[in-house]
């Protein structure tokens, strides 16, 4: 089976029509679903948070069969993810897309779990620590995208689970949990 680094590609990745936007409704629906699943699956395992439409993205071309996805196709499949709440456009021009293999709500739950696991209730940590601290190593939070982390923390702040402190720079922004 073909691989992209560690990622095992499904067989249909070598199916040329997979790379052509199908015009027939039913066929296209299935194609879109398969692309959505593959993108989410790939991003989750490879910890990819942002897909740039104009940049190289390994999934969007298959040198083995010499096929690559057109810009129209990329936008169509990512838009399908956006409409399901599994992605967000980061700019109006749809050039960058934030992939949410966990929804923001799910990320918030993961943070709470992290707080509980490390006994951080009522403590203060910097945001950077959540992303790259020793406690977060081996969890899904390790290396999380800054935008997603901020969004999840904001959600928790709204729920009164924590307070965000503005630091002098982005590096020393901190949060005080009050779970």
């Amino acid at each position, binding site marked *: *089976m073909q691989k992209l680094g560690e990622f*095992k590609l*499904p*067989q*249909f990745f*070598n*199916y*040329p*029509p997979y*790379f*052509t936007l*199908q*015009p*027939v409704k*039913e*066929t296209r629906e*299935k*194609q879109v*679903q*398969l692309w959505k*699943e*593959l993108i989410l*699956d790939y991003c989750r395992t490879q910890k990819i948070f942002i897909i740039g439409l104009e940049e190289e993205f390994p999934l969007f071309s298959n040198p083995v069969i*010499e*096929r690559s996805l057109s810009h129209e196709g990329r936008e169509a499949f990512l838009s399908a993810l956006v409409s399901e709440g599994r992605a967000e456009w980061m700019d109006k021009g749809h050039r960058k897309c934030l992939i949410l293999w966990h929804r923001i709500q799910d990320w918030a739950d993961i943070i709470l779990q992290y707080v509980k696991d490390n006994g951080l209730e009522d403590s203060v940590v910097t945001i950077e620590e959540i992303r790259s601290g020793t406690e977060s190593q081996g969890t899904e939070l390790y290396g999380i995208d800054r935008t997603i982390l901020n969004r999840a923390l904001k959600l928790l702040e709204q729920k009164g689970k924590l307070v965000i402190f503005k630091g002098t720079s982005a590096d020393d922004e901190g949060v005080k949990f009050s779970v």
Partner: protein
Amino acid sequence: MAWNCLPAVDVTGSGRPVLLPDEIECYYLSSVDLLCEEDSYSSFPHLKSGLLILTTHRLLWLSDSAAAGAGSAYAIPLGAISHIFSAKKSLKAMFASPRVRFQLSMSADGRVDASGSGSVSRSVVVTIVVRGKGDVDAFLAKFWESWRGRAWEVQSAPSSSSGPGATANSGGIYGSDGTVRMVGVAGILRKEQEQWESTDRSLQEAFHDLNALMSKAKEMVMLAEKMRQKLLSGSNSQTNAGDEEMGSKEEMQDWLLSVGIISPVTKESAGALYHQQLSRQLADFVKIPLERAGGIINLIDVYCLFNRARGTELISPDDLLQACSLWEKFDVPVVLRKFDSGVMVIQNKSHSDEQVFAKIKILATKPEALRAGISASDAAMTLGVAPAMAKEHLLSAESKGLLCRDVSPDGFRFYINLFPEIDLHDMRLLKDHGVYASWVKAIHVPG
């Protein structure tokens, strides 16, 4: 009624009368009754509200249901008509349906005598009652013309040498393979004879045309004379106001216009009938080319073939389209079909897409096709149709979900549709049977 005095006419599958060789249709009238004035003459059929067709040889009467193949159709040979009465102008006639009366000769055994000679035992007067719209005066003029033209006599002379059977089959575009086969010396001799005859015939026709030209020339001379006088009178009264001159110019334009249009009224009044008849004729005609093309044929091809068969009386693409769209209303074995791409074809009603799709499926699941897909020309070879047609078939197979497309720098190809077989919840799952499995097998064979 055990029998009747009029010969029956064969009707084609689409409800058109089968014409004699060299017979040409001249005029159509709808909703026509044919009445025999002597009520006692019971062998004259009861003909109510049908289509009357005047040809160079006969008067054909088709009941409305004849189109469906159930009704009746009769012919009155023009040769049996001994007199056509001129129309009566009376106050009563203005309100009643227009009528045309003629006298019909009967032979001794009570049948209509086509030869019009010899044993005429009696004659009856038949009335044509025109209930529908139609220019009866124009009809009457044509009726006289055809009757006087005696086309049936001209035709019978050459046909006697090549045998009646042969000519009957090769009449107009209905001819299939009725021609006599050319074999050996006899064939060469026959060919010589035919060539000689056709030269003779074309010479005759040329003189016919000359006659027609001369009769038209007479009209033209009259018209020219009229115009000259009008212009003269105009120049005499040059001092008159400009508006009168304008008036005369308009009048002159009217005349000039009337020279160009042959019979505008007729075309208007017979417009509906024209397309209807054209439609039926086309349905008959298209059968053979359709068979040859495998049950489906491009409309453009039909247009070319049909006009080639018509020779001089060409029809416009618009007329063809209109004729085809009228098929929905008649019981004909062919239909007009429009593909999603806009390509229009004529196909047999019995033609089934399923058969085509089955063939495409077999083609698309061959190992080579699984690997590299199929192009329109691949399908054209398998299906035995033109590549453009094959592409339409592939596109409709695609829209049915049988195929899907691959657009790449290499071109536009179709693959068997694997999408429905792929498990959405386990993308890497591979069942050991089905098209998906055989596709995986096929792409891994070369290495």
